[in-house]
């Protein structure tokens, strides 16, 4: 974890409603792993008060990328940053996805969850590790990759304007059907509804699954205890007084084993 002054190298529209920012950050690039995030100080004034967490979306040499949507004041201001702007960034934070033996990784991303999934896809591709990528969006305009199942890239859209019409679950089923019996594991990130769908699909099909969650974060480094995530307590641990009902998204996550998570509230 380090605090780095990062120069904005570029900042532009990537797809409908989606921006991509590239920043110079040698320290963050050297340490960053897929699933980790950075925490960005939007401006030195009192509003917005807290940093904004953003997943690392790719790393090239000493340059890392973010892929983000404009939601409110913080991301709106970020979208106005010009090349040359110096951003105060804390990272890399949290724990990423962990290696998965011999199983074929099926990467599933939706919403802004495509950002960390993109980084994971990049790293696996660079390592020549076989995997499948499934990305979901409402329409084709929100996608920035081409639907190409033969190259392992499956897109889904709610309106059917690109790739498979349907949700990422439909994309996931299609990708699974293409594997002849190879054991798979699902590595996912996306909005709460998608995480719940992935959790119930993988649990009912007994597929190992690791999900990255998004929680409101106060600090991103474990000092506010604000980013609690409800977890199923293993009965034996609870007995020993070691089971913690709530874990911290920033320190213990944001990637958790799907079986561990209690995903209740939107």
């Amino acid at each position, binding site marked *: 974890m380090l605090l780095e002054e990062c120069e904005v190298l570029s900042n532009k529209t990537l797809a409908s409603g989606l921006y991509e920012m590239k920043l110079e950050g040698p320290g963050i690039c050297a340490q960053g792993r897929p699933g980790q995030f950075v925490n960005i100080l939007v401006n030195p004034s009192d509003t917005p008060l807290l940093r904004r967490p953003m997943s690392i979306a790719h790393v090239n040499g000493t340059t890392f990328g973010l892929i983000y949507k404009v939601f409110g004041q913080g991301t709106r201001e970020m979208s106005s940053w010009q090349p040359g702007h110096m951003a105060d960034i804390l990272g890399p934070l949290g724990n990423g996805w962990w290696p998965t033996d011999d199983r074929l990784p099926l990467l599933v991303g939706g919403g802004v969850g495509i950002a960390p999934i993109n980084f994971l896809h990049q790293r696996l591709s660079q390592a020549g590790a076989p995997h499948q990528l499934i990305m979901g969006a409402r329409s084709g305009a929100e996608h920035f990759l081409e639907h190409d199942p033969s190259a392992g890239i499956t897109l889904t859209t709610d309106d059917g304007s690109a790739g498979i019409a349907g949700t990422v679950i439909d994309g996931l089923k299609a990708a699974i059907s293409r594997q002849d019996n190879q054991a798979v594991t699902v590595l996912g990130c996306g909005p709460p509804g998608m995480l719940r769908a992935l959790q119930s699909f993988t649990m009912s099909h007994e597929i190992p699954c690791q999900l990255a969650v998004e929680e409101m974060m*106060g600090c991103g480094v474990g000092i*506010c205890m604000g980013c609690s995530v409800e977890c199923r307590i293993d009965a034996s641990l609870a007995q020993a007084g070691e089971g913690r009902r709530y874990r911290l998204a920033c320190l213990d996550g944001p990637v958790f084993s799907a079986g561990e998570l209690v995903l209740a509230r939107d």
Partner: protein
Amino acid sequence: MTDLTVTLGRGLTLKNPVMVASGTFGYGDEVADLLDYSELGGLVTKSISLEPRDGHPPPRICETPAGMLNAIGWANMGVEAFCRDNLPFLAGLRTAVFVSVAGSSQAEYAHVIEAVERSALEIAGYEINISCPHVDKGGLEFGVSPEETEKLTSRLRAATERYLMVKLSPNVTDIGEIAQAAERGGADAVSAINTVIGMELDPATGIFKVQTGLCGLSGPAIRPIALANVYKVSQAVSIPVVGMGGIMSVEDVVRFIRVGAQAVQIGTANYRDPRIGLQIARELPGYLAKIEAPGLEEIRGSAH
């Protein structure tokens, strides 16, 4: 170089007046990568209870105009695990460490202190978080009643020879009265303020932004409220006052000193930048020189 040391009584001297506040600096070494804790004037731990506590369900925090709300619910590992796993690291730091104590009965507070004393680790003392609901009194917070505050303070005074600081709630009609009760009970200092009761909700759905509904407001939004309370407390007691609430800069620290604080604590600002406390401590001599103040003593209580 201006002398920044601060004497707080009971033989306790801080190397500078800038401490970090309870619940805003984790348990121990979370941000040790980023700064040298020994440059801080002091450090107050998360509030520790006797048994481990899960804390409140998510969401636990939300942002508000120039502030934030929280209801963490004193999530903590309990004093036993704390003394075993975290306190040794903290006690080894060259800064004044205060263990923040939470409880739902007078006995619980006392047991926490007894457990820390038994650990025989060298700490500066305790900060008593009296904004905890007293289960025997229908859940009313200790900190809203002068009688409860005095009783609790004298009981804890008997439990330790170390420094005893009582942390006041701003959610009362007369904070001076509560401060005086702590002084009568034998507190070495009072600190103020804890968070202000607040609430936020999603207008579209009516769902509380923080799961408990009522929760605590902190950050720059409450700084004027904190300054007013520290000013009132300083007028009410003769023991040292440790001020906090919305401190973001060296100017803010000087504001608190000028309304009577002996030292200060930084809370929410740590979330923006965990180095802020020591950065302010480093900037303090230069700022005092700029405003031609010979030292802290000369400007303390000088607001007019």
